[in-house]
């Protein structure tokens, strides 16, 4: 109980403190301190959940079970490493004059608030609060994306706000319908919005309302996940914001949105007794993988390219959860974890590389390996990992997804083969000259913080070769919870 209090309290307190003192030079370290606090609390919470199983807090308002506890731990961990990365990054940005003290204050404050909202969204049991938390997360990231005040970041923030606002409004309508269906079964004061109550009574819910509700929820949270027809805001938002924001957006916010969709899928599967939810996820997932793959080859901006790669991976994860079955769910959860680790590592490396070259265009970043081998190897290994080369974890989950898909949905595999091939060709064609070859770059004034990059890559490598038993038990429990 107290661990959850700490997990939520620390970032909130951090947001308040940093709102006051965010513009000071030591604010960076305070930010790291608070993130460290959150991570410690999260790991304590995780230990508790492993020991005693799922637990409630504050009278069923908050509910921790294997599915969301590993996301909480992941969010806290990536939050910490991004905070560490943003220390030197922000100092360099300040030297370049792109970050003024007031903007720094806004950045640090919003950063902590953003991690608070994500943690609330993950741990809450109340679907309404989940929606509110997602809405506040959108608001904070809109401010974070527009922190540079350039025309492009303004445009990106505006589109991000409008598109996600509309998307989340659909989700609200879906929640209302869900509440309506639940109220019929649980009665007026039955706490109809609490997921555990819904979960216990999910077979008696009215299929028609639940189908409509899932449609709205899927479109709503699907916009936040970045599935293809609804993805247009993602590349602009991830590319124009400061790199720590892109890392956190790509790494964590997409996972939280997909977590919300999964919560609803569990209810819909039981209520409809049909695989409609799975088919929707699979269809949109496959569409996202194929379309995002073809987007990749014409990119000029490195962060925009990796944003499209995030769309592709979220599509693959959605396809995995759409497949259903214990192995596919397991693979989906594993892919979620490894994707956030590796994608944030890539954004760290790309951040430093872009700072060295003074621009995010890939033509200007050449021959990194001669100027700073560590960044170069970070970027090369990261992009190889994200493209699904073993021995990294992304390959492990892709292996499971492709082999199960081969027998359950054989028609999908040629499309997947095409998409993965095109994606590999496009991304690698851009990354190779960036890392190897002649260089025009100048060294960085401040030593880049590459510890996070290589810690993430090591974890990704570990997940590819050896998955510790307790982590595996987690995934299996969570997969069973998803109707495995």
């Amino acid at each position, binding site marked *: 109980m107290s661990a959850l209090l700490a997990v939520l309290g620390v970032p909130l307190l951090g947001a308040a403190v940093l709102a006051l003192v965010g513009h000071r030079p030591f604010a960076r370290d305070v930010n790291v301190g608070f993130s460290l606090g959150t991570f410690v609390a999260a790991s304590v919470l995780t230990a508790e959940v492993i020991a005693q199983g799922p637990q409630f807090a504050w009278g069923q308002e908050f509910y921790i079970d294997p599915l969301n506890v590993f996301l909480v731990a992941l969010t806290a961990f990536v939050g910490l490493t991004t905070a560490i990365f943003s220390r030197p990054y922000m100092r360099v940005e300040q030297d370049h004059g792109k970050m003024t003290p007031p903007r720094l204050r806004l950045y640090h404050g919003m950063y902590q608030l953003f991690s608070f909202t994500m943690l609330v969204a993950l741990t809450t049991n109340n679907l309404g609060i989940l929606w509110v938390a997602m809405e506040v997360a959108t608001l904070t990231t809109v401010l974070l994306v527009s922190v540079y005040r350039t025309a492009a970041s303004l445009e990106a923030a505006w589109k991000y706000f409008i598109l996600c606002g509309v998307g989340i409004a659909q989700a609200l309508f879906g929640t209302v319908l869900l509440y309506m269906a639940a109220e019929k079964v649980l009665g007026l004061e039955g706490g109809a919005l609490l997921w555990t109550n819904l979960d216990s009574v999910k077979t008696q819910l009215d299929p028609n*309302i639940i189908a409509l509700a899932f449609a709205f929820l899927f479109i709503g949270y699907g916009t936040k996940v970045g599935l293809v027809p609804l993805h247009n805001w993602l590349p602009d938002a991830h590319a124009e914001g400061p790199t720590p924001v892109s890392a956190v957006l790509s790494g964590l916010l997409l996972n939280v949105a997909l977590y919300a969709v999964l919560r609803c899928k569990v209810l819909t599967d039981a209520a409809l007794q049909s695989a409609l939810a799975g088919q929707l996820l699979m269809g949109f997932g496959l569409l996202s993988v194929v379309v995002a793959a073809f987007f990749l080859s014409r990119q000029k901006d490195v962060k925009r390219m990796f944003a499209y790669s995030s769309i592709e991976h979220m599509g693959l994860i959605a396809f995995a959860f759409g497949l259903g079955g214990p192995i596919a769910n397991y693979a989906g959860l594993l892919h979620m974890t490894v994707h956030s680790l590796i994608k944030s590592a890539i954004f760290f490396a790309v951040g430093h590389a872009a700072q060295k070259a003074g621009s995010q265009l890939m033509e200007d970043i050449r021959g990194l390996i001669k100027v700073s081998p560590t960044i170069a190897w970070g970027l090369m290994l990261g992009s190889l990992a994200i493209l699904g080369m073993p021995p990294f974890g992304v390959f492990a989950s892709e292996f499971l997804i492709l082999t199960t898909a081969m027998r359950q949905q054989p028609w999908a595999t040629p499309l997947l083969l095409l998409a993965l091939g095109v994606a590999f060709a496009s991304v690698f064609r851009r990354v190779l000259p960036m890392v190897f070859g002649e260089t025009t770059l100048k060294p960085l004034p401040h030593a880049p913080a590459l510890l996070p990059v290589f810690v993430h890559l090591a974890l990704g490598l570990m997940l590819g070769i050896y998955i510790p038993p307790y982590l595996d038990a987690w995934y299996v429990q969570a997969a069973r919870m998803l109707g495995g």
Partner: protein
Amino acid sequence: MDEHVAPLINLFAAGILMLAFAMLSQRRILTLIHLFTLQGAALVAATVIVGYVTHQSHLYVSAGLTLALKVILIPWLLHRVIDRLNVRWDVETLINIPTTMLIGIVLVVFAFNLALPIAQFSSSIARGTLGIALACVMLSFMMMITRSKAVPQVIGFLSMENGLFFAATSATYGMPMVVELGIALDVLVGMLILGVFMFQIREQFDSLDISHLEKLKED
């Protein structure tokens, strides 16, 4: 008492739908804001009546909140923005008004058709309102698509929030208090941020036309 309350709620629901239609086809920005305020008022009235009928005290609180937000604060903010940015021009739309109206009608029919099977089961007294709420959401969605200026787009977004709020109150006697508060807070903060953005867009592009916001694209 209940039998003649349902038509009253249906009346207000029809009112909200009519206002959504009117906003869709409105050219002038000032009248657009007035229509939005009227829609807020209708929503407040509907919530009060539902609250009165179902003796749900927290509905009064949310009605008060909506009144404060959607009828007083946000229209005042919009007026301030329009005065400061001296926005006086007419609202030209991408496709002409008759076609938008036609599409609007098709959407309403679709929304009703969609909500029909659900309406029978809903226990609340106002069965038909769900279809209307859905229609209002779709219409405001249409409005956002067809408008090419920042302010009308924001108003479309807010009228969509109205539709959702109406669905929450009418279909399910209102969501739990903490959720209502959260939604209201979100809308308010959203509005603040949009206001700030409008100032920046105006300062960056010295016009609120969204066509300037088209540089981030695939060449």
